[in-house]
């Protein structure tokens, strides 16, 4: 460094130095952005979410005219009417959650633009019978590297209720995850076949 930026060259080099300083500042700013986003790669974040994905799902339209049989009589039912899960199909989001903080955390809620509502569910198989239940009080995310929580088919999932758009393979969408300690973390979810 000292040779390149020796006293004799300093005058001619100042534009380069300026560019370098500006570039460094910009890089630092970008780095900060990544940290706030915490969508996976930042190892320093308390909560790290990786491999967030969803099954493909279609939109189910209860007013659909099948083979031109019916005419749309009930015009009142629009896409905002997601009561009782009607109007759209449901989906499931899976992911891996790691908690690098010293304290246990808890995923308490989630939100996304693609669905009318979101619930945290668990599925149990009891003698061949599938039982899906809302997880009371949220999903516990224990601290420590070995305590990774995996949301996967046949177990825990973030259930999307009343999808307002189809989820097609290759699509991505954001889900906001609310953690008791870590606050809100936005993750990008990829739609793919399991």
């Amino acid at each position, binding site marked *: 460094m000292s040779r390149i930026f020796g006293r004799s060259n300093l005058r001619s080099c100042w534009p380069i130095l300026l560019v370098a300083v500006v570039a460094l500042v910009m890089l630092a700013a970008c780095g900060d952005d990544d940290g706030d986003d915490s969508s996976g790669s930042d190892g320093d974040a308390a909560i790290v979410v990786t491999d967030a994905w969803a099954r493909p799902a279609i939109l189910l339209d209860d007013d659909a005219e099948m083979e031109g049989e019916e005419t749309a009589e009930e015009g009142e039912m629009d896409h905002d009417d997601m009561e009782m899960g009607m109007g759209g*199909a449901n989906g499931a989001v899976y992911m891996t959650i790691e908690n690098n903080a010293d304290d246990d955390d808890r995923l308490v809620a989630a939100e996304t633009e693609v669905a009318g*509502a979101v*619930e945290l*569910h668990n*599925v149990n198989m009891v003698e061949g*019978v*599938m039982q899906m239940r809302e997880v009371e009080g949220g999903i516990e995310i224990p601290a420590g590297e070995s305590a990774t929580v995996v949301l996967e088919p046949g177990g825990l999932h973030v259930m999307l*209720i*009343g999808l307002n758009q189809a989820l097609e393979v290759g699509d991505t969408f954001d889900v906001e995850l609310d953690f008791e300690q870590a606050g809100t973390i936005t993750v990008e979810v990829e739609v793919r076949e399991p």
Partner: protein
Amino acid sequence: MKRPLMFGIAAAILVAIVAAAVVPRLLASDESFNGTAVDPDGPPEEFTLVSAAGDVNLSDYRGSVVVMYFGYTNCPDFCPATLSKLSKVREQLGDDADDVQVLMISVDPERDSPERLAQYMASFDESFVGLTGSDETLRGIAAQFGIFFQKAEGGDASGYTVDHSTTLVVLDQQGRQRLFLPYELTVDQVSHDLENLL
């Protein structure tokens, strides 16, 4: 020394010939199933349910291997997993898939209209058919195959969920029940079992 040697070689050749003839046949006629084989006294009771295209009788599918799943369209995890598995099974079966009919019988008649079921099923495979009917009819059909379902409390948004058996019921081309396929079976295992019935 020469005679026993000749005899040994002849015997080895004979064994090889017999093995070559018998082993492929044994493999081809592998009648073992990955699922649970059943042999009921008679065919299941006839039923009539509703699809988006109109009434459907179980006997309409005589001539096809029928794979029945009991599920519902609001189910986000097990049902799509099972139906996408069955769609892959049909792909794997190639031309034989023409003789395999997948039916989903709703365990949620309150929310599953025939149209809703049709859209849902078609998203997995154009050939899949979704059927519904009155709660009483559906319960009767499920019961005769030992399938259980029951409403369970869901969250505020999901309203309710439905606990249900995930086992597939398989009838052969003569309309007799032959198999139960547990949820855990892979695409290959299910394909193998259905192939055996064709």
